[in-house]
């Protein structure tokens, strides 16, 4: 039996996929410990093994999530204000965790670059968990070179004496991608790595949040509108526009994952919730309108639900591109969306059989992927030197 150290972020899109793998590993008799900042959802970990709290970012700019940056600018901001400072601030604590816990293998979220470099330094096998499949794509020569340069400097600083690699966040042993190649596509080049496409990672132990199921009317078509937990509280203007669009669609019901303040101006066919049991709800809706967050997209497609993708920044434009190239959704330009254009797009999503049938095909691929068990198998193989991939 092995000891596995999991380094991740206390955010839904990072923690839940890691928890899904961890519960499989625990059930197979392995000992799991966590290295994560003690914030956000990290209280979910109390029952799941030892936790090494990582120092919180002291100088995280308060406006990081409110910046208007998009496109390449948002990627640069993400590295300069988040990923790189976090790597520098957590590196020592991660090396201490190795000394105390003595892991046989690591599982490292791709955004925890400091943990990836610490894993490399520990000379123990490790796997990357690429919680957004966008990071496996080459984006643009200029952007890719900028990232490689920033990560090169970080490696020289944290691990002097070892030659930097282009992608220190990607393990040379295994990169677990919770998506499927049928969605990721071949249009964009990928970084070379030992990929394992395991499909969506569902934490079966995760309890559903309460939901007023009786509000859903059997004779109406329904859409779920979500900008994800990180963007939920930012998009008031967007949600107000959605409410206006829904006034034009009285025969459709919409569930909005939005701040409570939106509820005041919402028409009767809109239900505003701050949290929803997303996977159970996806089984009951006919379409999803979202920011193209990796988890929401994969969870919707796993259930064959087509999407309207309205990416804002970071990896979202690339995930939206995957959906559009796969034919499983329609595009809504986030900052330019009007109520009339959005209502027409929702109508199209509900009536056009194309995206629905492509989503159904992708659901077959998602459901036949190896999932959390497959990811746990990858980590178990790391524990057996002869079988190391």
């Amino acid at each position, binding site marked *: 039996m092995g000891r596995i150290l999991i380094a991740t972020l206390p955010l839904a899109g990072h923690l839940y996929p890691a928890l899904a793998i961890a519960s499989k590993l625990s059930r197979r008799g392995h000992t799991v410990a966590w290295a994560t900042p003690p914030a956000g959802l990290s209280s979910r970990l109390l029952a799941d093994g030892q936790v090494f709290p990582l120092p919180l970012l002291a100088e995280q700019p308060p406006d990081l999530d409110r910046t208007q940056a*998009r*496109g*390449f*600018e948002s990627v*640069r901001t993400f590295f300069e204000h988040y990923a790189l400072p976090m790597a520098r601030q957590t590196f020592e604590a991660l090396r201490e965790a190795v000394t105390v816990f003595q892991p046989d293998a690591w599982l490292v979220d791709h955004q925890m670059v400091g943990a990836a470099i610490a894993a490399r330094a520990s000379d123990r096998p490790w796997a990357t968990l690429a919680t957004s499949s966008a990071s496996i794509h080459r*984006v*643009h*020569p*200029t*952007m890719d070179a*900028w990232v490689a340069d920033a990560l090169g400097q970080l490696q020289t600083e944290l691990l002097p004496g070892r030659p930097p690699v282009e992608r220190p966040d990607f393990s040379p042993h295994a990169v677990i991608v919770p998506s499927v190649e049928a969605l990721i596509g071949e*249009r964009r080049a990928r970084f070379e790595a030992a990929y394992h496409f395991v499909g969506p990672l569902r934490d079966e132990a995760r309890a559903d949040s309460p939901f007023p199921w009786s509000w859903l009317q059997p004779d109406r078509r329904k859409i779920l509108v979500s900008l994800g937990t990180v963007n939920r509280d930012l998009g008031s203007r967007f949600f107000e526009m959605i409410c206006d669009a829904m006034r034009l669609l009285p025969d459709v019901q919409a569930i909005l994952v939005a701040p409570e303040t939106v509820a005041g101006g919402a028409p009767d066919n809109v239900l505003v919730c701050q949290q929803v049991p997303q996977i159970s709800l996806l089984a009951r809706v006919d379409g999803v309108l979202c920011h193209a967050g990796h988890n929401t997209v994969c969870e919707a497609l796993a259930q064959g639900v087509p999407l309207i993708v309205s990416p804002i920044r970071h990896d979202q*434009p*690339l995930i*939206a*591109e995957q959906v*559009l*190239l796969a034919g499983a959704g329609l595009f809504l*330009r*986030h*900052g*330019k969306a*009007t109520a*009339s*254009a959005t209502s027409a797009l929702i109508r199209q999503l509900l009536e056009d059989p194309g995206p629905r049938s492509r989503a159904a095909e992708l659901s077959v691929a998602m459901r036949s992927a190896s999932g959390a068990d497959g990811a746990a198998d990858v980590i178990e193989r790391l524990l057996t030197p002869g079988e190391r991939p």
Partner: protein
Amino acid sequence: MSARYTDILATVIQKVRDTVNEDWIREYPIGPQTQISRDLEIESIEMVILASSIQRHYGARLSLVDWLSGRSLEDLISLSVGDLVRHIDQALPPDA
């Protein structure tokens, strides 16, 4: 401003409107200062489609994709309609 510059500007603006092809863009004021990413939210595959469509218009006389690949990150972030027009104007042979 040369007649040719004005011509290229009109062509690029038309290519932007055709590529986006949504209601709002028909009335949206577009000029040399308009930024492709910040103002028009054009990115990833749509930028490739826009560049190829401009490329097709001018043919082998310029290589827009190569030129874009060589821009700095700062240049790409703030890339404007005017940047594209200036490049095309300089890249085309004088009598084109």
